[in-house]
Every structure is written in C-alpha cells, then in structure tokens.
C-alpha cells in the first residue's frame, strides 16, 4: 500500500537539485550533459539558461500530464539540442562574420571535425551491415545497461553519503550483552546521561524513539510514524526546519506543552504545503499538538515513512535498565571512528560509578560492550551491501562477456576487410589512419550502445523502485542521475577503446604480402585469428559458468530458506493490525480486541481468529527480559534467564495451527478471574525448565504473581526465518498488564477456508462500528510476511538469475557465431571431405569436436574461477556451503547443454554442404 506512492507519479524524489520529479531530473541531466558538446562560447553564454528553461518547461509538463509529458517534451528538447550542436560547431569553426572573433577554439574544433568524419564514415559502414550493427548494439546495450543500473543502485544505496552535511561523521551508538543473549541493545536513559556528561569525543548526541501513533483529524484516523527526538538531533544531523523552528530544551522538558515538526511529505499531503501551518494543531493519540516547524524536503530520518517529529523527554535521573531508545551522534572534529570506538569502550566503566548496583562483575559476565557505527552502515546493513557488491561484480562479468562477443563480431568483420586493409596499407595508408577507422566504428557502437544501455538502465531502475523490494534500504534515494550518466559514458568509452584496440593488436604484425598472395584463404594467419576468437569464447563460457554457479548457490539458499519450518501454517491466514493508541486501560483494550476478533470470526468463510501483539516471523522489536521461576531461586552470582514474550488472545494457536505439544491451550475462563497462566515454547521448556514445563510458575516483573505454565507449544521462528529458534512465552493479553500497560496495538490472525479471505472492508466496518477512531495498520497475508522474511535472499537471487540468464544467452550467441563462422570458412574443406566420402555424421562430429574443445576449456577455467570467487558470497548464503557440490555439478551440465544447442545449427549446416557447390564456389 505504501509503495504505491513510489511510482513515477508519486511525490517528487531526488532529482537534479531542487526537488524535481525523477523523470524531470533525469532528462535535465541528460540535456545538460549533451550541452557540454556545444562550442565553448555558446555553451558559456547560453547553456545554463537553456537548462533552466528546459527544467521549467518539463516541470510544467509534469504538472499537466505527469511523466508522459516529460518524456514527450524531453525528447523534443534533446532532439533539438542534437540538431543544434553540429550547427553551432559549423558556425563556430567558420566564423559567423568578420567582426565576430568570439567563436570557438579551432584546436578542439578540428579534432571534433575529424572525429565527426570518422563517425560519419563508420555510420555508413554500419548501415550497410544492419544485422551486424544490430547484434553488436543489442549486446552492448544489454551489458552496459545492466552494469549502469546496478552501479546506480550500489552508488545510491551503499556509496553515496546520506543527505546530511559531513554525513560520515554521524554515528549510531548501540550496546550488546551476549552473556544475557541480548546481542543488540540500544540505549537507556542511564547510558544517554553518561554520554551526555562524559563523552567529549562526540560533538553532540541525540536520542530518538520511533513510534506508531494515531493521527486524528483527516477523513480516516491514520496510523503514522512519529519520531520522538531530543533537541540535539538537529545539530547531530545538521538538518534544520525549512519553515518554523527546531525544538528547544524547554520543549523536551517534562510536562511541556506538546509540539511537533512535520516532515516535508506530511506537510504536503496533509496540509497542502500550507506555509501558514506553523501554529496549527494536530491530534496525536490524545494530545493536541502544536505544529512549530516543517523539515525540508529530502529529510528522511530515520526513514522516509516518518510523518512527525515530537520532543523526547529523557529523565536526567533515569535508570540504567530500560534499553529502547536509539542514539545518533556526530563525532567531534578530528576524532576518527576507531578512536570513538576505543573511547566509548573505556567509558563503560563509568556505568558502575553512576549506578552502583550494576557491578563491574555483572558487566563482565554479560559481556557488556558498546559500539560506534557509521549511521550509513547501520541504515544499509552489511548483508545487503555485500549482496549489492556481488550483483555489481556479476553484471561486470556480463559486460565483459558482452564486450567479448562484440569483439568477436569485430574480428570477423576485420577479417572480411583484411584484403582491403592490406591494400590500403600497401598504398601507404598509415596505421593511424586505419586505426582511426576502427576506432570510429568502435566509438559509434559504444556510444549508441551506451545510450541504449542508459535507457535500459533507466527503465530497469524505474521498475525496481516502483516494485519497492522490501530488502532494499534507501529505495527512495535511487535514481539515474549525473553520476550514472558519467559512469555510463565511462563504461561505453572504455568498451569502445577495448573493442577498437583488438583488431589493431591483431593487425600490428599483419603480413601484408601473405594476405595479398593467398587471397585471405585458410592460412596460418587465419588459424591464429581463429584462435583469438576461440580464446574469447572460452573466456565467455568461463565467466558464464561462474555466474551460473553463483546463481545456483543463491537458488539453493532460497530453496533452503523456503523449506525452513516456521513452526506454524502460514497459508490462508490474513493478518490485520489495529491500534487503540496509548490512552486505553489494559482490561478495556483487551475486551475491545477480543470483541473485534469474535465478530470477524463470524464472517463467512472464516474458521478461526487469533490475536497477538506481534507478527510471527515478522522481525522487528520484541519484548523480553530476565524472568523468575517459582521453584528455582536465582543464583545471584549467575546471569538471570532471559526470554521473549508476547500477549495473545483466544484461539491464537488454532488460527496459526501452532501445535500444542503438552498440556492445554489457553481458554477464555483463564482470564476471568482465575490464576494467571502462560504458554511456553519447546525451546523455553528445554532451556530453562529441564524439560518439564507444565505446572511451573514464571514471572517477568519483580513483584506480582507467578503465571502457571499450562501448555507447551512448538517452536516458532518469531524473529525471522533466518534467525535461530529462541525461548518464547505467550501470555494472555489481559494478564500481561505489567508488560503491556496499554495494549496499544494488536494483530488479528484470520484463518479462512482456502481462497476466501474476508474483504478488508468488512473488517474495517467491524472495527469502525466498535470504535470509529481506531485505524487498521498492517494488512498482509502470512504468506506475504514469509516472503518478506526471505526478501533479501530472493532479491539477490532474482538479480543474479537475470544477470546469469543474460550472460548465458550472450555466451551461447558468441559460441554460435564462432562455430558458424568456422563452418563457413571451412566450407571448401568440408566439401572436399564430403567428396572423398565423409558421412554426414562424421562432419557433424567434426564440428561438435570444435565446440567441445572450447566448452571443456571454458568449463575447466570457469570451475576454478568459481571456486575462488563464490567464497566471497558467504554472507548472503543461507545454510549452503560456498562450495556446494550440487551447484558445482549442475552449472557445468547446464552450460554444456547450452553449448550443444548453440552448435547444433552450424553442425547441421556443415553436414548438408553439397561438395559440388562448395568446390565450385572457389
């Protein structure tokens, strides 16, 4: 739902500067780049104005007709510019009159004219061989397009700094306590106060807390992301409101009047970008909140979904214990990340000084530590970064294969021209002259192929962004921009130069006499050139094999991931989030949610409806902590047991088909005045209760009654399919009042007859009838939740598979081309053989032998390379070794199958050679 707004018609994304729609930004960037080719004088006088005019025109076109308007106008303007460039050069070179000495630089001009001539000649030559030109262009466009597209993603997601000044000095501070099985803790009031007092290596430090809140006032109540921040945030990020003011220390004091700062997106969508919004109020849950400012466009902290910033109060006397607040900081000038890491580790000893009950011993046992990490690394994540680099390397391979293919075509063409070239050389044409001919052709192919590739990349990026893969962070920042353009230009140029250089190298030692003498028939030279081509094809096949093995590994990972048992049956279950907000007391909230569940259960086709405070496999933050067991007193010298818990309603197990292993399910009588009860999973029972859970008492709060364990359920991978099974407890939502003082949000799990999920409108009606101010939040099938949990792996897999498909196709085309060519060159020889009595099978076998040699060499080389390279994929694989035998066997088999297919046609043609025809042709 939220992704729909990211289509091409959505809110403006980063363009070439001041908040343009991406399509406009792209066209303007292309126009400006093209304008660089104008003569210097004209360029410096008018290009800026022309670019600005175009931007305004396109913006108007976008406002009227959306991106089709931009494309129409942009194409016309680009065509106009392309027509104008030669005209301006012509004028600049010949001078527009005797008294106008301002024009151009003759040096550049002459060079341009020579190049222009070469290109024109090349264009004519290519136009005479359209099939060859098309094959070369399509191949180059595929290679360059894929590389540019993935480079753009890598550049915008991994390389480019976050949009804050000196963004690589902005860091995230986190804690970890492996001894407590708490790998990732954020900050507590205690650690924040410690750092505010003592961390002189930080220029400023801010805390923030992301929450979902109900925003009232619109046609529907809305659940929006609200970020509570301490006032330092604006200094830390170097971002300040574009309208109104930032928060002051007074705003963040306890009991201060509620104020808020809108993000740009919320300002535009909710307030129509009203500049007078400061001073107006919105209703956030129960608090009437005054708007004091608006953040500038492009501010997307901590993510683009944020709608409102509110001040965060941090208790200056707060305890050490509750970790749930995130912290960002800006390093002090001159402090490196490594120094900051060392200093914060030293500071941890301050914890025991500030909080005497946290002993150094306890910290030591817990394995307590703090980490400082660049915000960007945290946002992107190491795993997705390595996946993207792998994909970039992959498409780099594809580009190499594409270049090898075109180089092969080039060689074939050069060969067919060898007599002409030898003649020209004999008549005194310098090597430079011949070189510039080849170069002209290579540049033209590279340039046009690059332009087509850029279009492909642009389309691909649009497709990617509008599909919004869940795995990709910073998605809203991805667009084809000047850097992509530059990269595309560079890749095209390098490919062109490489292509142009190959025939030159081949012809550096051309033995003119021999070519002229034997008319270019099979000769030593011919065989050598044939070898060059075979080497190129071998390299292509080897590269393709590496990619095949790589995508095989991803496919196997995905398969393993898919066969992970989540612990419940996710099919035919719809989950819908609903949120009462923070104002409602627990018993009342529980009654409301249960009533909704019961009414939804009465809808046609619905079998069971469960309730829970978190979605299984959904990831995200979960509640948990150390707990007490009634018959097992804590040994204070040992670390306490730690487990996660969530609140559930009636029928939770039935709705998710979560198996009950021992004891009984929760019943409604459990929360009508009986003894408190709980369910635990098998991991919990095994780890903490010595395999005998039913009847034992557990409690998480320090006081209060123990909850009696009445049943043991199967393990569920609550935190995601790739995460280990952890000990979990399921507590009836009414009783979990100490943990959930306000059941601000619960999820319905609606199991229905296959194919008959109830319409969301029916659920909305039920919720609306019971309480009109409650918004629905997440609406997803559990199958979608599962898919999301696999998103990173499937994303990498799909990209690799596409790249591999292209690589395999290009490799097959290359092999086909070479074998066909060999057959055509050897027609006479084949004819002689046939005349001497060779059977069709013999000839066919001879051709296959030719391709088998290449294939075997390619497979051998490829296997060695794959063995070396796939171990770099370790981070993105799941439950599959980087040297997985299945992938290493299946990939060569597939490759050989493809080479056989590619050889089939030429072999058939060879076997049908008519000896008379072949001999007569000579």
């Amino acid at each position, binding site marked *: 739902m939220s992704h729909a707004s990211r289509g091409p018609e959505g809110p403006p994304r980063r363009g070439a500067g001041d908040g343009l729609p991406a399509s406009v930004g792209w066209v303007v960037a292309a126009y400006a780049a093209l304008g660089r080719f104008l003569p210097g004088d004209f360029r410096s006088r008018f290009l800026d*104005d022309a670019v600005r*005019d175009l931007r305004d025109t396109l913006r108007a076109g976008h406002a009227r007709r959306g991106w089709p308007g931009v494309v129409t106008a942009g194409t016309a303007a680009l065509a106009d510019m392309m027509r*104008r460039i030669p005209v301006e050069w012509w004028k600049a070179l010949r001078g527009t009159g005797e008294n106008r000495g301002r024009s151009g630089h003759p040096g550049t001009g002459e060079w341009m004219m020579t190049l222009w001539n070469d290109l024109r000649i090349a264009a004519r030559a290519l136009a005479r061989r359209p099939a060859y030109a098309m094959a070369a262009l399509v191949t180059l466009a595929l290679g360059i397009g894929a590389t540019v597209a993935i480079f753009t993603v890598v550049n915008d997601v991994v390389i480019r700094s976050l949009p804050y000044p000196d963004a690589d000095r902005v860091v995230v501070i986190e804690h970890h306590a492996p001894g407590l099985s708490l790998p990732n803790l954020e900050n507590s009031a205690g650690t924040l106060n410690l750092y505010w007092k003592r961390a002189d290596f930080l220029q400023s430090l801010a805390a923030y807390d992301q929450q979902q809140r109900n925003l009232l006032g619109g046609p529907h109540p809305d659940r929006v992301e609200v970020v509570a921040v301490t006032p330092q945030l604006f200094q830390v990020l170097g971002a300040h409101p574009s309208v109104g003011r930032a928060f002051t220390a007074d705003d963040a004091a306890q009991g201060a009047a509620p104020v808020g700062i809108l993000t740009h997106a919320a300002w535009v969508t909710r307030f129509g970008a009203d500049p007078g919004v400061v001073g107006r109020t919105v209703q956030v849950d129960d608090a009437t909140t005054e708007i004091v400012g608006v953040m500038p466009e492009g501010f997307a902290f901590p993510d683009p979904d944020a709608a409102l910033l509110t001040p965060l109060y941090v208790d200056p006397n707060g305890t050490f214990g509750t970790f749930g607040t995130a912290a960002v900081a800006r390093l002090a000038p001159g402090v490196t990340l490594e120094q900051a890491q060392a200093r914060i580790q030293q500071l941890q000893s301050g914890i025991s000084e500030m909080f005497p009950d946290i002993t150094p011993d306890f910290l030591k046992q817990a394995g307590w530590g703090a980490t400082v990490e660049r915000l960007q690394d945290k946002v992107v994540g190491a795993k997705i970064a390595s996946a993207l680099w792998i994909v970039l390397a992959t498409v780099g391979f594809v580009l190499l294969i594409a270049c090898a293919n075109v180089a092969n075509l080039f060689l074939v063409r050069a060969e067919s021209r060898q007599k002409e070239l030898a003649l020209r050389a004999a008549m005194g044409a310098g090597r430079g002259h011949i070189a510039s001919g080849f170069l002209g052709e290579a540049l033209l192919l590279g340039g046009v192929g690059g332009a087509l590739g850029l279009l492909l990349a642009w389309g691909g990026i649009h497709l990617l962004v509008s599909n919004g893969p869940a795995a990709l962070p910073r998605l809203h920042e991805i667009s084809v921009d000047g850097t992509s353009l530059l990269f595309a230009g560079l890749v095209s140029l390098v490919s062109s130069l490489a292509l142009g250089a190959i025939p030159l190298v081949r012809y550096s030692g051309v033995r003119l006499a021999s070519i002229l003498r034997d008319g270019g028939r099979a000769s030593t030279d011919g065989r050598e050139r044939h070898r060059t081509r075979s080497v190129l094809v071998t390299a292509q096949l080897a590269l393709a094999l590496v990619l095949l093995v790589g995508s095989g590994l991803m496919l196997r990972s995905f398969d393993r991931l898919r066969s992970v048992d989540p612990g419940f049956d996710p099919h035919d279950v719809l989950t819908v989030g609903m949120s009462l907000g923070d104002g409602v007391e627990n018993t009342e909230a529980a009654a409301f949610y249960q009533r909704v569940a019961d009414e939804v259960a009465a809808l046609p086709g619905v079998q069971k409806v469960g309730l829970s405070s978190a979605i299984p496999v959904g990831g995200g933050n979960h509640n948990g902590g150390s707990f007490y067991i009634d018959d097992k007193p804590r040994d204070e010298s040992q670390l306490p047991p730690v487990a996660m818990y969530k609140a559930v309603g009636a029928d939770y197990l039935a709705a998710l088909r979560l198996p009950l292993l021992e004891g009984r399910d929760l019943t409604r009588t459990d929360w009508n005045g009986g003894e408190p009860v709980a369910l635990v999973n098998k991991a919990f029972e095994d780890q903490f209760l010595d395999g005998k859970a039913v009847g034992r008492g557990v409690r998480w709060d320090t006081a209060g009654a123990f909850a009696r364990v009445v049943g043991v359920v199967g393990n569920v991978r609550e935190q995601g399919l790739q995460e280990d099974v952890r000990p979990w407890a399921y507590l009836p939502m009414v009783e979990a009042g100490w943990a959930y003082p306000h059941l601000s949000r619960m999820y319905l799990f609606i199991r229905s007859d296959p194919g008959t999920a109830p319409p969301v409108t029916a659920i909305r009606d039920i919720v609306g009838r019971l309480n009109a101010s409650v918004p629905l939040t997440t609406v997803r099938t559990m199958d979608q939740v599962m898919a999301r949990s696999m998103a990173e792996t499937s994303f990498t897999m799909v990209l690799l598979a596409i790249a591999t498909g292209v690589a395999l196709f290009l490799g097959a085309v290359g092999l086909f081309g070479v074998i066909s060519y060999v057959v055509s060159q050897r027609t006479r020889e084949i004819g002689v053989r046939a005349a001497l009595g060779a059977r069709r099978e013999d000839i066919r076998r001879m051709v296959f032998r030719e391709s088998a040699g290449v294939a075997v060499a390619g497979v051998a080389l490829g296997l060695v390379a794959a063995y070396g390279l796939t171990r770099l994929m370790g981070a993105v694989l799941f439950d599959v070794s980087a040297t997985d035998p299945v992938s290493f066997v299946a990939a060569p088999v597939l490759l050989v199958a493809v080479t056989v297919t590619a050889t089939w046609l030429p072999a058939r043609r060879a076997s049908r050679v008519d000896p008379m025809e072949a001999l007569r042709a000579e």
Partner: protein
Amino acid sequence: MTSRTPAPASFIPLKPARFHILLALADGARHGFSIREVVEARTEGAVKLWPATLYGAVRDMSDEGLVEALEGEEDPDDDQRRRYYRLTSLGREVLRAEADRLQSLVDAARGSAALGRT
C-alpha cells in the same frame, strides 16, 4: 547616424522563429523562458521554441544587432538570475518591415479571387 547600421530590408524575409522572437520582445524585455511561453501561447502551441534553437536564434540576432541582452538588470523577484533580452531600434525596424511584408501578403491573399473573398 544610420550610416553604419545595415538596412532593415537586408534582413527580410525573416525566418519564422526569428519573427516570433522579435514579436515576443516587442512589448518589453523578456528572458528566454518567457519568450518561449509567449510564442507558444500566441501560436496556440503550434510553434515551440526549444531552448537550443531559441538561444541559437537569440545569439545570431544579438550578433546582428537586432536584440541585446540587458546586462546586470534583473527582476528583483526572480532569484534565478535569468538574462533578459530586448529589441534594439534596428530590431524594431526589422520587425516592422517584416510585419509590413506579411501584411501585404495577407492583403494580396485576401484580394485574390482564388480565395473567393472579392
């Protein structure tokens, strides 16, 4: 005084793009984008002057002394610092001469029996 200025007649007939640009500047100085908009509006979208063509023509006409850039004068409300152009007196005369030529053509057409307007 006019001895060094080329005769307006030597510019006639004007290319359509040039005529439209001069006409757009007849009622005061404009920047490039505004010229484009005025021309597009006047011709109801039939004539679109894309930037490269527009500035090419402006450069030619400024070299020939038909229009001139207003250096240093900016619209105080326009923070984008666009350059403004206006007609020179020669440009105005050329525009008038071209308009007269077109007028006489139109008159001739109207008077022609072929159009049935006698």
